[in-house]
């Protein structure tokens, strides 16, 4: 039945993007816009006592200087979660448009509105801020101690949230004689998304409403947050999202849209724009949570698990943003991935004076997999079992059902993915060959699997809306609230629409821009949900449109609708396959009918009450130069079971991008903080070591296709999963090469130098 789904259709936006014709936020902003720049705190924690703006206001070209003393007394949430009508499940509202209580080095305390960038920058330098400084804390566990600096009023020990999992009886189970105890502490870093287009937005007022054009993943959510922050009825806000240059979760948050919108209202509704520099993007947008994980496993000599304990401390930074959802997702994966009858898990999300952590590709799973999969290899080392054999023995079995989400593992995804990766890398032969090497250059291979689930049901709302509008020539436009953010959803949706309606792909026109005034409601791009969730509303809306079309065809052809079909843009009589007329003829006749003119459209909302596991693994091969403390990544293979591939070429590209991100996570990227001031030391693309092409091997992506039974197209998550397992695979390859178990990432030369010295591999 399927004709377009499964093919390598060219991206619908490819030509416009490679020729530079595609418009991004800044391309759309009128050159006469006023420029907003934010004045940032130069302390990590304290109160603004006074701000002297007099010199700044005299800078030629400055229109207005606004401070934390001018903003509405409204605290608002920023997380890109669907709103909950249950107050108990609403996101934490803990920041104002500009803040008197500053909570990280770089917090927003004032804003300058000027005629150009130079005037705005000069005014920023002329602002004098007087602070009452308070002690600050950067480490989550330090922040939990009694007497630590209090970052948000009423939040005891800075703990934003705690949650736990209990299965069986850990304390009794660990008493079993003959158990081997394996214990580890694993640290993951604060990293930033580094999407190529920095966040920026512009705002103006029109007909008494605020319009914001913004680089976001979540226009409908941003509309709600802007309205909340400004104290406006939600209908008074309109958000427009054009093409964006990546988001990776950073733009799954209301960033500077509320402040930009408010600034416009303070200058009579004039057009103002606020663009983050790269340096601001590192410090004052969102980052990935640094999570410290403590794992204890009690293992029998035969490799079965008797009891396990996990404690995870998630560094939230200064504001709640996505909050506890991130570490909780990782913690909940722990008892599922390697089921064990006796488990104790606790996770804490803790405010610190670091930049606010939010969503980032993988949403807690890259952290959890670095800790969990490193720990599995530590177990294997302790009991002398091969990493492959241990995983085969203990990983989630086929037929496993999670009690909460009702997710089921329908296929033998883990073994199939591991088999494929093993063959591609020649893993088993190399694993043996690389044992017990000597000399300065040593090679190793490593394996890690990952757990992931698609979308957010049943934690949050899952629905998707779609609208289709038929043109006179039989082509159509369609819109969804789910957003193209570079991942290619406009293309795969177009493929789905072509098949679901029964028209050629060339007759499908996606409306890429979301405009909350005209786009059907949808919560946006996140949780690797686009292809899965969008499929439901596309199929449902296509069905509604087809019914309308075939009913009109009945009127026009006098054949019963049930005997008609729409195939490749033609109205076909099913009994003999005769083409009765083209869809274009039908639509033209219908629209211009003097008797009964019909504008043929369909719009529906699909309710999605399911969610799907999406699993896979990574295999890495490294060469370690011990005296130089360097790791060269020779090969990296990712294998995914994301169900049926809608567009294999785009799927492969998606995997490559995630692997690239994970290479940096594993080997080089981290934000560093000055312990004396709390300032980010390396918030720029020179000092923050995003990995480059030259640091990459040829990225190898492979797939196992077990169609997902809950999805109309048999598909499930692939956006975030590729970033989840490469870092621990690299770590485990270094262990295979050198015998040295690294307990943190990124595994930089600095770390290797210390560890190799401890292990006696380097002598002074």
């Amino acid at each position, binding site marked *: 039945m399927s004709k377009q789904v499964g093919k390598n259709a060219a991206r619908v936006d490819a030509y416009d993007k490679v020729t530079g014709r595609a418009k991004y936020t800044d391309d759309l902003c009128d050159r006469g816009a006023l420029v907003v720049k934010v004045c940032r705190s130069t302390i990590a924690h304290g109160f603004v006592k006074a701000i002297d703006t007099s010199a700044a206001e005299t800078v030629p070209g400055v229109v207005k200087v606004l401070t934390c003393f001018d903003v509405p007394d409204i605290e608002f949430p920023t997380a890109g979660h669907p709103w909950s009508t249950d107050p108990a499940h609403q996101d934490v509202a803990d920041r104002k448009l500009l803040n008197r209580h500053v909570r990280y080095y770089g917090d927003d305390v004032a804003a300058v509105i000027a005629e150009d960038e*130079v005037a705005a920058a000069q005014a920023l330098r002329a602002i004098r801020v007087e602070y009452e400084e308070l002690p600050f804390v950067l480490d989550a566990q330090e922040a939990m101690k009694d007497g630590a600096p209090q970052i948000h009023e009423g939040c005891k020990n800075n703990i934003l949230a705690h949650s736990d999992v209990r299965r069986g009886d850990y304390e009794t189970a660990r008493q079993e004689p003959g158990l081997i105890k394996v214990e580890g502490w694993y640290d993951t870093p604060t990293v930033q998304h580094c999407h190529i287009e920095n966040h920026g937005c512009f705002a103006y007022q029109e007909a008494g409403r605020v319009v914001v054009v913004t680089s976001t993943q979540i226009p409908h959510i941003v509309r709600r947050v802007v309205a909340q922050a400004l104290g406006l009825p939600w209908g008074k806000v309109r958000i427009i999202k054009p093409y964006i240059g990546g988001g990776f979760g950073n733009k799954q948050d209301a960033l500077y849209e509320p402040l930009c919108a408010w600034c416009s209202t303070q200058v009579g509704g004039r057009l103002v724009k606020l663009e983050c520099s790269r340096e601001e993007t590192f410090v004052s947008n969102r980052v990935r949570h640094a999570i410290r994980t403590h794992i204890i496993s009690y293992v029998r000599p035969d490799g079965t698990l008797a009891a396990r304990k996990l404690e995870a401390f998630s560094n939230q930074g200064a504001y709640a943003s996505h909050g506890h959802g991130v570490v909780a997702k990782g913690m909940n994966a722990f008892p599922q991935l390697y089921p064990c009858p006796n488990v104790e898990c606790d996770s804490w999300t803790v405010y610190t004076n670091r930049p606010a952590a939010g969503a980032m590709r993988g949403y807690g799973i890259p952290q959890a997999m670095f800790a969990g999969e490193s720990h599995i290899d530590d177990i294997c080392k302790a009991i002398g079992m091969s990493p492959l054999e241990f995983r085969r023995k203990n990983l989630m079995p086929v037929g496993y059902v999670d009690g909460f989400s009702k997710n089921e593992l329908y296929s033998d995804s883990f073994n199939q993915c591991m088999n494929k990766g093993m063959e591609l890398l020649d893993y088993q032969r190399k694993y043996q060959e690389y044992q017990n090497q000597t000399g300065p250059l040593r090679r190793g291979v490593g394996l890690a699997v990952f757990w992931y689930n698609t979308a957010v049901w049943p934690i949050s709302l899952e629905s998707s809306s779609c609208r289709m509008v038929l043109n006179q020539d039989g082509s159509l436009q369609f819109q969804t609230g789910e957003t193209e953010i570079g991942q290619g959803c406009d293309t795969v949706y177009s493929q789905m629409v072509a098949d679901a309606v029964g028209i050629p792909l060339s007759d499908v026109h996606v409306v890429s821009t979301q405009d909350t005034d005209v786009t059907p409601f949808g919560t946006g791009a996140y949780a690797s949900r686009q292809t899965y969730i969008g499929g439901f509303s596309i199929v449902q809306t296509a069905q509604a449109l087809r019914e309308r079309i075939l009913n009109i065809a009945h009127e026009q052809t006098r054949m019963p609708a049930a005997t008609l079909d729409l195939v490749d843009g033609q109205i076909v009589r099913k009994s003999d396959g005769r083409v009765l007329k083209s869809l274009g003829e039908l639509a033209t006749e219908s629209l211009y009918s003097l008797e009964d003119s019909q504008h043929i459209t369909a719009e529906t909302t699909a309710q999605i009450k399911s969610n799907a596991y999406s699993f896979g693994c990574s295999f890495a091969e490294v060469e370690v130069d011990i005296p130089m403390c360097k790791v060269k990544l020779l090969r990296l293979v990712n294998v995914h079971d994301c169900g049926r591939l809608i567009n294999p070429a785009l799927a492969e590209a998606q995997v490559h991008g995630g692997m690239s991100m994970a290479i940096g996570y594993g080997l080089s990227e981290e934000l560093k903080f000055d312990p004396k001031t709390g300032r980010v030391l390396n918030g720029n693309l020179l000092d923050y070591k995003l990995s480059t092409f030259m640091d990459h091997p040829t990225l190898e992506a492979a797939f196992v296709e077990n169609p997902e039974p809950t999805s109309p197209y048999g598909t499930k998550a692939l956006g975030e999963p590729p970033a989840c397992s490469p870092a621990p695979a690299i770590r485990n390859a270094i262990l295979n090469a050198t015998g040295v178990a690294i307990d943190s990432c990124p595994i930089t030369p600095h770390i290797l130098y210390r560890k190799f010295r401890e292990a006696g591999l380097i002598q002074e």
Partner: protein
Amino acid sequence: MYDMKALYQAKSVADAVALRLAHPEAQIIAGGSDVLVQMREGKRAGAELISIQTLDEIRGVSLDPDGTLRIGSLTSFSHITRDSLIQKYINVLGQAVDQVGGPQIRNIGTIGGNTCNGVTSADSASTLHAWDAVVELTGPHGVRRQPIQEFYIRAGVVDIRAGEIQTAILIPKESYENCFGYYIKYAMRSAMDIATLGTSVNVRLSADKKTVERARVAFGVAGPVPLRAVHAEELAAGQPVSLELAERFAQAVKEDINPRDSWRAAKDFRIHIAVESAKRAFIESVKLAGGDL
């Protein structure tokens, strides 16, 4: 948009000197890969600039009549890497500057700018130190030549006097003849990075390739300015070529280097890498010179 007070376009070296005297506070700009970045950061906001970008008379590589290799200060990194004279006489310099930033930066960045910045991490600096380069400055009183080690005064400060501009980097014939070198940029990633440590070694072997006649080694980021490790050089001079010599040579660099602890890298780590890099660069240099280890 740059916060620039004025831009003066020099039409010749003499014009540049006149502009320097007329606007003593102005900053010279060549390729702009450092100056514009600093202006954007606000460090040089509101500055006056004197652009020497179009002075072709100080661009390019040539041989002076006495055999001195002359590298015009405006010569870009990518030009140096591809230049046949560089490849013939001091190939290691072309290799070193080919590791600056990325391709675009190497097309606009100049060796004059790289040295006038006075930063210890500049990829050209350690090799120029190791090859006893001479800096040529042109000013109101004519041309002045100065050994590169004296040109660097302290971190970020070089000896350019009122009205002067740097017009060339010179490599004397005695320095490059029969000399082969190797550069190791130690950085945290394989491109687009600043050196954690730069190590440039070169050797001249005896005619039979059995003896080190002269070995020179210079480091970037082993001190506030690029520096030579003279103890190691003295130790190696006149010694038979061997792996054991490479090891002793490398250990001896510790006598002279003085890297600091910073958030970018710890002192002990930098010293460790300096020793290992010196050993490897020495071995590679000897091999390039035709020696057998």
